[in-house]
């Protein structure tokens, strides 16, 4: 398989409007990945599937990822007026980088037996603009996996034929795999040696806890 930069060049030529970026992988020996913007995600995936040199027809794995809002501190040299003079001072800027939800796709090719090609797409933020294109029109294998990501992360896949919760029940309100998910404070009474849990249980089940 061609290297990722080569592929990127070809893709950029084929889709001039697409925003492509190579995301380096910190772990040695593991492939870097290609970040595609949501708008051209479906087109790029179609290219990967149908290109004769790639023939990535096997979408093996679709993963959701949750990146929280980050506060980045950086030192900036700014000019300030100080006693009538303009001097340069270091100032520490705190910047909030908005978090986003990310979906990672692992493509393989069954006829050419190469892979994986790792593709990523990111939503604009974690709250209200969590739309990504669904790859189900191209790859049926994404059907349940996208439903699962919708269920557990809350990414909304536009174009998915049957976007329902997969693992949690219908009517469940939250997305449990998000990093800031807080488990609901209701559970069955179980005696436990752990003091904190016992305390919590006592609040819910005073009678049982008293006996236990």
């Amino acid at each position, binding site marked *: 398989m061609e290297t990722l930069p080569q592929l990127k060049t070809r893709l950029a030529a084929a889709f001039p409007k697409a925003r492509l970026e190579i995301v380096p992988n910190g772990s040695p020996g593991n492939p870097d990945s290609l970040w595609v913007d949501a708008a051209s995600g479906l087109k790029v995936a179609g290219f990967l599937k149908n290109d004769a040199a790639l023939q990535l027809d096997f979408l093996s794995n679709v993963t959701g990822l949750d990146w929280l809002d980050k506060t980045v501190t950086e030192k900036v040299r700014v000019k300030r007026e100080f006693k009538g003079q303009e001097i340069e001072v270091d100032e520490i800027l705190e910047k909030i980088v908005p978090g986003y939800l990310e979906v990672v796709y692992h493509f393989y090719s069954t006829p050419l037996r190469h892979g994986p090609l790792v593709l990523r797409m990111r939503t604009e933020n974690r709250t209200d603009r969590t739309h990504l294109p669904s790859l189900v029109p191209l790859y049926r294998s994404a059907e349940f996996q996208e439903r699962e990501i919708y269920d557990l992360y809350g990414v909304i896949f536009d174009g998915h034929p049957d976007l329902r919760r997969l693992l949690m029940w219908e009517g469940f309100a939250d997305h449990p795999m998000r990093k800031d998910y807080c488990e609901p404070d209701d559970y069955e009474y179980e*005696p*436990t*040696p*752990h*003091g904190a849990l016992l305390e919590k249980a006592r609040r819910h089940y005073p009678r049982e806890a008293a006996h*236990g």
Partner: protein
Amino acid sequence: MPGFGIIKGLKETARNFFGSYHDPGRFVTIQYPEEKREHHENYRSFPFLVYDGDPVKGLRCVSCKICEKECPPQCIYIVPEQDGSGKLLKFPRIFDIDVSVCMGCQICVEVCPFDSIKMDQEFEVSTADRFGGLILNRSKLAKSNEYYHQIRPAEATAVDAQLAAERERQQAKAAAAKSPAPAAAATREKKP
């Protein structure tokens, strides 16, 4: 000839029918309460705490809480002993394992630096009292080193040899440093 495959299948079941009367390779059932299978030395069920000598004072556990942290289902609960001034001692005051939660994965044994927690082979632990009977406390967990030797002879011997070597090394180090440090508990000096 249609039906031949069915007759072949019937022949096979007939062979197994008669084979079950004379071929131990086919008839593998063990009548459990009367006969019990021999467990291999590696067989594991639930953890127990090893002690040398005294069942309370001789516990090898120093209440370092590594197993509590590493335990995947979080079924271990440890509270270290304190002396009068509130200083933590290297001894567990409470050591509970909720056996109904424990999945017998042996990770506590692997991560224990002091060879103090080992896997038992007792598997008939059913009790009528699920809540009390399945939370094992320190006294229920403590079992002697001799018992350990009995269930896992090879492993226990290796552990004993390793502990002895460690002790010797510590003593040698202590002797070399001519330490003013307290000699007691030198064997277990390690950061919790």
